[in-house]
């Protein structure tokens, strides 16, 4: 088992105006780990995720990516984001571009990869997520589950070191959740480092290496899925688990 540290967060604090949304967060994500963030809405888990690729800028604390402490003043955040892929709740595909154009946009525009090579790699990724017959259609013709799988392929096209998932199945019809979770599970099995915000406890238990329970901007409990789900130590965690299971 590889134990390279991929992400380390120390004493992270984030405010929205007067609202203190992240309070002294400490978090460690090793290479190939799947860390699942759970908690009620408003607990700060999405904000934490968005701080990790600097879509939100922290107010205080340290974020260390692959051994390097990243600050917006000293680092080109675009370079960091190339290595930290993100999948959004609402997919955020580019509606004016076809599926394959969505996938090759960043590799060709950011990394300067030749279009023919990007298309070839993009098609392989789309084949992998089960959309080999959808290269040239526009996103509006796809189902929600298909859109999210395109979004995963689009993020993977940048060959990121870490993938962040922000409630990737929350906007999907129930019957479409499974296909997206299956794609994510496959990715985890290939050794991708993943941080996942989700309400899918079955996924957290089965695929997660670590589960983090957040409440009111703080990490309440942290552990392996079996410990946290079957033997929660904190009263808060027990209350949360009994409310959702």
């Amino acid at each position, binding site marked *: 088992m590889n134990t390279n540290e991929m992400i380390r967060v120390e004493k992270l604090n984030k405010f929205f105006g007067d609202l203190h949304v992240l309070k002294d967060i400490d978090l460690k994500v090793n290479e190939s780990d799947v860390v699942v963030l759970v908690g009620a809405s408003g607990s700060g888990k999405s904000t934490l995720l968005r701080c990790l690729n600097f*879509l939100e800028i922290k107010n205080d604390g340290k974020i260390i990516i692959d051994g390097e402490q990243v600050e917006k003043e000293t680092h080109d955040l675009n370079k960091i984001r190339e290595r930290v*892929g993100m999948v*959004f709740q609402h997919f*955020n595909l*580019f*509606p*004016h571009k076809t599926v394959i154009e969505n996938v090759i946009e960043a590799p060709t525009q*950011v990394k300067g990869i030749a279009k023919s090579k990007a298309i070839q790699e993009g098609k392989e990724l789309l084949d992998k997520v089960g959309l080999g017959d959808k290269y040239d259609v526009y996103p509006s013709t796809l189902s929600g589950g298909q859109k999210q799988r395109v979004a995963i392929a*689009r993020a993977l096209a*940048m060959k990121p070191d870490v993938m962040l998932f922000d409630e990737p199945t929350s906007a999907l019809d129930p019957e479409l959740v499974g296909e997206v979770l299956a794609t994510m599970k496959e990715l985890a099995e290939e050794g991708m480092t993943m941080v996942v915000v989700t309400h899918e406890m079955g996924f957290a238990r089965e695929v997660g290496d670590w589960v983090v329970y957040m409440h009111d901007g703080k990490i309440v409990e942290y552990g392996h899925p079996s410990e946290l789900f079957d033997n929660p130590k904190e009263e808060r965690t027990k209350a949360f688990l009994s409310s959702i299971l």
Partner: protein
Amino acid sequence: MSHLIEVFIDTYDLFLNGLWITLKLSAASLFIAFFIGLFFAILKISNIKILEWIADAYIWLVRGTPLIVQIFVLYYGLVEIVLIPMFWAGAAGLAFHSGAYIAEIIRGAIQSIDKGQMEAGRSLGMTTGKTMKRIILPQAFRRAVPSLGNQFIIGIKDSSLVSFIGLQEIFGVASSGGSNNFDYLTYYFIAAIYYLVIVLALTLIVNYIENRMAKSD
């Protein structure tokens, strides 16, 4: 009616000259106005206070004064500084005017694009500028086509006002023809027909573009 047709046929070449000037004037001024509009739209969404104020001041100036005043001030002001052909003085005045309205149309269209689009671009490592150019603006322009088409139609009709600085476009031709022959109604009626035809053609073009875009969506 037969008199109208007679005059229409007799003045054919005069009005075609005027039509040609109207078309050149509209094309030049709206082309420039588009880039003025894009420029000020980007200032307005820049989130930099001083740039927003500059854009606000420009829009306030244009909306707060009549076009005819703008044309006269620009024309007499510009000829004080540089020797500028009447055509370009007129085109500059019209572009200065339409630019403000186009700026507001483009700003509105940009702001109507879901914030997630910018976030998606940024999360892939693209810069704000590149995401704006490749992701946001292409979608915003599609959304702006109907309003831009409408503004272009207004621009074509407004170009009639530059006849007051002496340009012989459609309205100018009608004015001189009407007074020379003491037959105002007929000449202005003919001018109206020419404008209607231009606007009809532009409407059909805009509809065609809208339909084509609807298909690719």
